[in-house]
């Protein structure tokens, strides 16, 4: 809960007490099942697509009417009629499809998307998600598809730093910011832990070996379960 943890946590064994964003993406990617239809939120979640294990076939959905997104295009292939929800150029895999926005959100709202991965400002121990507005007086409110995804996707993974750049906890008892959806988050993948949202609140499934359970708890704004059962969050170096 103090700023110290997040800003001084890079010690002698940097790979084991704090993951890079790409490593968080790698870890999350391991938990996506073969054949899943997956929507990756804008920003950090987009990294996940790079780390799907070889031979595992996943179909990526984008709100703007795309199924079957492939890897980033070469400079030569870039076509601005073919962009993802983050407005970045993409490519299509064989088997992809285009459709209009109402059909795209029918997929989301109708429970056809197996998983979405979202960023977060805060997540509460009840699974409440805040990721669209800090509610500040000067902020332009912008919600996009996050509220639809939060309630519509069968599973919601959150990918986030465990603390803000100021060192404030992002996993909390009650979200201080405006909600995106109540009770929607299933699992949170942070730079120091994998945390499941359960009926009994947050339960740490894995933590980085470089931090004690107490140190993870210290950086968290709500009680954490799993002290006796949690495993090591070990991720290879990823380029």
């Amino acid at each position, binding site marked *: 809960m103090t700023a110290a943890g997040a800003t001084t946590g890079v010690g002698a064994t940097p790979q084991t007490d704090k993951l890079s964003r790409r490593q968080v993406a790698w870890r999350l990617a391991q938990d996506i099942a073969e054949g899943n239809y997956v929507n990756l939120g804008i920003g950090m979640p987009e990294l996940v697509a790079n780390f799907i294990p070889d031979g595992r076939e996943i*179909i990526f959905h984008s709100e703007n009417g795309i*199924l079957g997104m492939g890897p980033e295009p070469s400079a030569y292939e870039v076509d601005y009629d073919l962009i993802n929800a983050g407005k970045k150029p993409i490519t299509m895999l*064989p*088997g992809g*499809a285009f459709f209009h926005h*109402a059909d795209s959100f*029918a*997929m989301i*709202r109708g429970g056809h998307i197996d998983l979405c991965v979202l960023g977060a400002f805060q997540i509460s121990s009840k699974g409440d998600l805040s990721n669209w507005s800090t509610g500040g007086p000067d902020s332009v409110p912008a919600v996009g598809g996050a509220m639809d995804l939060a309630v519509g996707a069968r599973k919601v993974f959150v990918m986030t730093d465990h603390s803000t750049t100021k060192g404030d906890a992002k996993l909390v008892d009650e979200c201080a910011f405006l909600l995106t959806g109540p009770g929607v988050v299933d699992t949170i993948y942070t730079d120091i832990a994998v945390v499941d949202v359960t009926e009994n609140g947050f339960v740490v499934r894995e933590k980085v070996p470089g931090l004690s359970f107490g140190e993870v708890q210290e950086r968290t704004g709500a009680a954490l379960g799993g002290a006796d059962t949690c495993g090591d969050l070990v991720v290879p170096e990823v380029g």
Partner: protein
Amino acid sequence: MINKIVETLHDAVSVIEDGAVILISGFGESGNPTELAHALIDHGARDLTLVNNNAGNGHVGLAALLESGQVRKMICSFPRSSHSEVFDTMYRERRIELEVVPQGTLAERIRAAGAGIGGFFTRTTIGTPLAEGKERREYNGQEYVLEDPLHADIALVKADLADRWGNLTFRLAARNFGPIMCTAAKITIVQARSIVPLGDIPPEQVVTPGIFVDRVVEVPNPGSEREMIERDFRYTVGDGV
């Protein structure tokens, strides 16, 4: 590797349980998954509720399924036709329940189920006996009734082309209820005239994206319902497998 293709009609329908609500594509004689319906007779699941625009023709497909005694209830818009003798007889003998839904409301209720809509207001049926007991609301001086989504356990759909991801196209007017039914069932089972390699269907020409499809079985030469009626086709259990 994702592979939604199953080898036999028998495998395709094997997941259907007693009591299932089953959407069956087709309108009149076009787009009916006749071979899947016959496989469901072999499969034997009972106490079914079927949803189709009509109520079967001759003794083929849906009509054969009705005749088999596996169906408790029919939800449709137009059960009467020149070849609907099986349903007509069962209905008059009170051996089957009927829920009549206007065609557009039927389509929209199916679409709403697939799209995660909780309910919707429509002007259709206002002033008619079919609006009785339904919640009403006025919009811009006109009355609307509230209709619920129509969720199903199973959809049986006939398509033209399909690939291993379950992407589909439909032939001519055989499209009709197929695309929306694919969206509204827990498990969507498709018979396609031809299974093509992934990528053969251009992404702009996919009509039903594979996300709405669970199982695909190839039926290269589906029977013509019209011809089957003309030769007074009768289904014999076991023929479909």
